[in-house]
């Protein structure tokens, strides 16, 4: 690290270095999107450039976070058979040299291999010491009430500043920025002692100068500054994360402002610095652990672990030499690293079975009948929930399905018929390139006008209601005027949610009846852009020939009630919005004659009788709605009728399947009753489990549907269609790996960390959530913004529903092509080579799976390990694999 010599930096240089320090320190907090467009992110995304294990150490040190399940949890899964000894053997073999593992040690009367000794230590060893947060602020170390006051005061002003977008009483002076507005108002805050107010009244006008002055008062040396700033950011990662997002997307605030507020409060409240009451104590503490092991200064940890095993295994008296030899073996796996072996074994159990089943299922497939045209083709989002819809639709008849990121290559800003602020409907990795508007279909102006008038009336009533609620005296008048209606309505919504939902929808239809509309693709895109979109979409998913008469792009969204986390259930590829507009855009473009002509010139001939259709899957109700059905030509209406009938059938079957997992839904419900139950939950404003979202997600498969078609993957796998034969240069695969897979990894990491440490990385229970405008939720009346997913998204009570595993990406493509793509994309190198994502590949259906490792590709399961032989034998005995159920993976 290069720093200016002490005392030689100018003010400008000191400010610049401080801002850079803030940027580096801020990597410990992930950007937190507003909850109204919730985006799943890896909470440790700023640490992806270091190995997973290192990132967990940093997170433990700075955030006090747990990075894996605890050992007792893993051991319980081992006792229950979810993790087998063979899984642990393989995990150890991936971590330690085979030569070491096969060496023999003696303990008393026992003769054990190193593998057996390590396994015994994993299963019976004393729990490893829990690492506690060591990067703390001065107030956290010396005066906890003051630390809490720093948090409370900062939260209060952040809410006032950020929340001003959504309330009618803005923070005075807000236009000057967070720090300056706060610096004007804080000295007037009579909740603070007079001395503190006087202190705050003398702050510099610039945030960076205030932060530097406070750091100096707190005694933070330049070399310790990044660590100290991290500790302050980690104190309230919700506000810090949201301000980081806002700095990067709005630019009206930055983290230097935020830290200047926190540091100034801390210095003033602790009354430190020149002329102050307190001396300046050293600001940092050394890392500490809660010591629960038997290790002592005289007895190394490994010796204590061996002695524990001597007792547990009833080995009898062991000599000093035997204990030392055992300790030498255990030293290869520090107790603190045991959970990483458990995690690897836990993941391996699922992954081994998944890959073996993929191989067996593909080998057992009947050859495709040449020339048979599918009844229709359905292109769904890669979202794991789509796997269920695809599977059930394929079971109804000769339908072919594909997986593609749910924005269907249309990175758009979408404005619906009612106008207003356009939705950014694309992955957050890109900016929207095109603007698309919903317009009245030709000749339907009157219907559109009626709908618009109805929407305006509904919006006006809702706005008036909310304004009256937010006004100082309005709520009293509102209660008098509308209380007689609101009370019974609330009672109806509570007691009869399904009926109330039907009434509400009927009322909405009556006031604002639907009108036929179109999307404005010709104004939003040039012809070249439309052709490129069409070509990219079809090539990436491997659909360049064999088109059906109907090809439906099926986006998805979720309808829930009273749910601040609604966007977390919508389409991640559409920036937390419903995917219908993107499906409509892609379908409209592919129906254009000019686009078809240009595609034919590029080698993709779409038959003249193929019609592209848009649809939307509601993942809460499992109903699929056809969009723009009025544009479907009469010649295709019979095809459409058959498709919608079978989609309804598939939706009912999927609802029944989901009801087996949803708390409170009867597992024995037949299809129609299950469908009604799903709809009832969707409209129930007291329902905290409307659907499970992406809970359970564990893998991302890139390849043709033939790899997965016979399998029930239990809605746990992202499926991206890909045909390596039409992508010799790897361009399509590179796009899949650098965009959809990256988004999937963010989702996977969000679910993972929200499950393993819900206190640090999760959003707490929904039952006490207190939304602030559209920006986030608090747990109760104040405090930090909640990050991550609510508890009810990953668990039932204390029992996790989501199985926290890192993502497995399995690709059907030549390995040299994959390597080439990874080599030229550092972000992929970090994910795959640092243990954030595991990568498997097989070039042809009969090829064994290979694992990418830091030393090159290796067979997925090394020969000589018992589980691999057993699994292969079992599958080989079954030429026609039995239907695989989701239970196979749990």
């Amino acid at each position: 690290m290069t720093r200016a010599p002490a005392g030689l930096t100018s003010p400008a240089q000191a400010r610049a270095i401080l801002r850079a320090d803030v940027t580096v320190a801020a990597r410990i907090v992930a950007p937190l999107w507003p909850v109204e467009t919730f985006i799943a992110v890896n909470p440790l995304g700023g640490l992806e450039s270091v190995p997973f294990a290192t990132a967990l150490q940093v997170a433990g040190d700075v955030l006090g976070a747990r990075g894996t399940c605890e050992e007792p949890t893993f051991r319980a899964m081992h006792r229950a058979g979810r993790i087998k000894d063979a899984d642990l053997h393989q995990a150890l073999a991936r971590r330690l040299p085979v030569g070491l593992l096969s060496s023999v040690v003696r303990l008393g009367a026992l003769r054990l291999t190193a593998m057996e000794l390590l396994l015994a230590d994993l299963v019976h060893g004393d729990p490893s010491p829990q690492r506690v947060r060591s990067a703390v602020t001065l107030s956290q170390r010396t005066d906890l009430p003051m630390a809490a006051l720093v948090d409370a005061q900062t939260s209060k002003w952040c809410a006032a500043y950020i929340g001003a977008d959504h309330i009618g009483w803005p923070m005075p002076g807000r236009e000057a920025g967070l720090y300056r507005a706060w610096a004007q108002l804080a000295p007037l805050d009579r909740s603070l002692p007079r001395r503190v107010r006087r202190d705050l009244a003398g702050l510099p006008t610039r945030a960076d100068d205030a932060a530097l002055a406070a750091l100096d008062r707190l005694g933070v040396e330049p070399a310790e500054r990044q660590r100290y700033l991290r500790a302050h950011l980690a104190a309230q990662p919700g506000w810090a994360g949201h301000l980081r997002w806002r700095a990067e997307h709005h630019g009206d605030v930055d983290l230097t402002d935020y830290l200047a507020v926190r540091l100034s409060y801390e210095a003033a409240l602790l009354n430190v610095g020149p002329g102050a009451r307190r001396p300046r104590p050293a600001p940092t503490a050394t890392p500490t652990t809660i010591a629960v092991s038997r290790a002592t200064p005289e007895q190394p940890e490994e010796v204590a672990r061996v002695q524990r095993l001597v007792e547990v295994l009833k080995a009898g008296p062991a000599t000093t030499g035997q204990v030392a030899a055992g300790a030498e073996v255990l030293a290869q796996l520090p107790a603190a690293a045991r959970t990483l072996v458990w995690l690897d074994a836990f993941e391996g159990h699922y992954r081994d079975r998944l890959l073996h089943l993929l191989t067996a299922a593909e080998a057992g497939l009947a050859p495709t009948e040449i020339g048979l045209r599918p009844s229709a083709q359905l292109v769904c989002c890669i979202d794991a929930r789509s796997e269920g819809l695809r599977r059930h639709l394929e079971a109804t008849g000769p339908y072919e399905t594909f997986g593609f990121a749910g924005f269907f290559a249309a990175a758009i800003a979408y404005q619906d018929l009612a106008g207003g602020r356009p939705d950014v409907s694309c992955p957050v990795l890109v900016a929207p390139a095109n603007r698309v508007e919903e317009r009245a279909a030709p000749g339907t102006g009157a219907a559109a006008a009626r709908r618009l008038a109805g929407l305006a009336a509904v919006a006006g009533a809702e706005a008036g209601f909310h304004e009256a609620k937010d006004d100082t005296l309005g709520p009293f008048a509102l209660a008098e005027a509308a209380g007689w209606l609101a009370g019974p309505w609330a009672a109806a919504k509570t007691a009869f949610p399904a009926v109330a939902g039907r009434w509400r929808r009927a009322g909405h239809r009556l006031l604002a009846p639907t009108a036929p509309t179109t999307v404005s693709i010709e104004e939003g895109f040039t012809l070249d852009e439309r052709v490129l979109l069409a070509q990219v979409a079809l090539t990436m998913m491997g659909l360049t020939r064999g088109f059906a008469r109907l090809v439906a792009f099926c986006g998805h969204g979720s309808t829930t009630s009273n749910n601040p986390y609604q966007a977390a259930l919508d389409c991640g590829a559409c920036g937390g919005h419903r995917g219908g507009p993107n499906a409509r855009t892609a379908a409209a473009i592919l129906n254009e004659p000019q686009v078809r002509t240009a595609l034919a010139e590029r080698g993709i001939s779409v038959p003249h009788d193929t019609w592209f259709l848009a649809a939307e899957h509601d993942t809460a109700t499992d109903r699929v709605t056809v969009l723009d059905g009025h544009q479907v030509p009469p010649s295709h209406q019979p095809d459409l009728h058959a498709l919608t009938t079978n989609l309804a059938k598939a939706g009912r079957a999927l609802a029944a399947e989901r009801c087996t997992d949803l708390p409170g839904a009867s597992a024995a419900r037949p299809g129609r009753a299950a469908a009604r139950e799903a709809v009832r939950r969707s409209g129930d404003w007291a329902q905290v489990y409307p659907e499970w979202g992406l809970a359970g997600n564990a893998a991302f498969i890139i390849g043709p549907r033939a790899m997965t078609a016979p399998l029930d993957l239990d809605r746990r796998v992202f499926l991206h269609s890909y045909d390596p034969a039409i992508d010799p240069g790897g361009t399509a695969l590179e796009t899949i790996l650098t965009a959809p897979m990256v988004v999937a990894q963010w989702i996977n990491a969000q679910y993972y960390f929200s499950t393993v440490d819900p206190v640090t990385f999760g959003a707490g229970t929904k039952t006490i959530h207190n939304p602030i405008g559209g920006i986030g939720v608090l747990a109760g009346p104040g405090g930090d913004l909640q990050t991550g997913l609510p508890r009810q998204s990953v668990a039932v009570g204390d029992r996790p529903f989501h199985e926290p595993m890192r993502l497995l990406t399995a690709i059907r493509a030549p390995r040299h092509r994959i390597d080439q793509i990874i080599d030229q994309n550092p972000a992929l190198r970090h994910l795959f080579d640092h243990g954030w994502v595991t990568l498997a590949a097989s070039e042809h259906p009969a090829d064994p799976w290979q694992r990418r490792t830091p030393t090159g590709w290796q067979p997925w399961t090394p020969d000589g390990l018992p589980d691999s032989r057993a699994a292969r034998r079992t599958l080989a005995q079954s030429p026609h694999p039995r239907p695989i159920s989701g239970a196979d993976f749990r």
Partner: protein
Amino acid sequence: MNRDALTPMVKIETVVAGRDAPAVRELIAAAGATGYTSVSGVSGLGHHGPHQGRLLFNDHDTLTLLMTVVPDEQADALIYGLRTLLGASSGVMFVSDTYVSRPEYFQ
């Protein structure tokens, strides 16, 4: 070419990951620079191997070239800030003398 009529300035160029570009822009603005040029999706070969250029659906993980020109008295502060940032990130910085014909644009 005669440079007597031109004004000497300092040109600072950085190549950083797209995710770090907002931080560099913030440093440039905080240092008092009046503007910058940004080119996203640049490709090349560097210390950590080859880097792909523009990706179809990911601006986040491609490299961005940011270039600014500042008067000499503002340059040191920005250089200190950027070196601190690059001390903890991948990326490179190039500093060179340059000349401009309209100095008022840069002050």
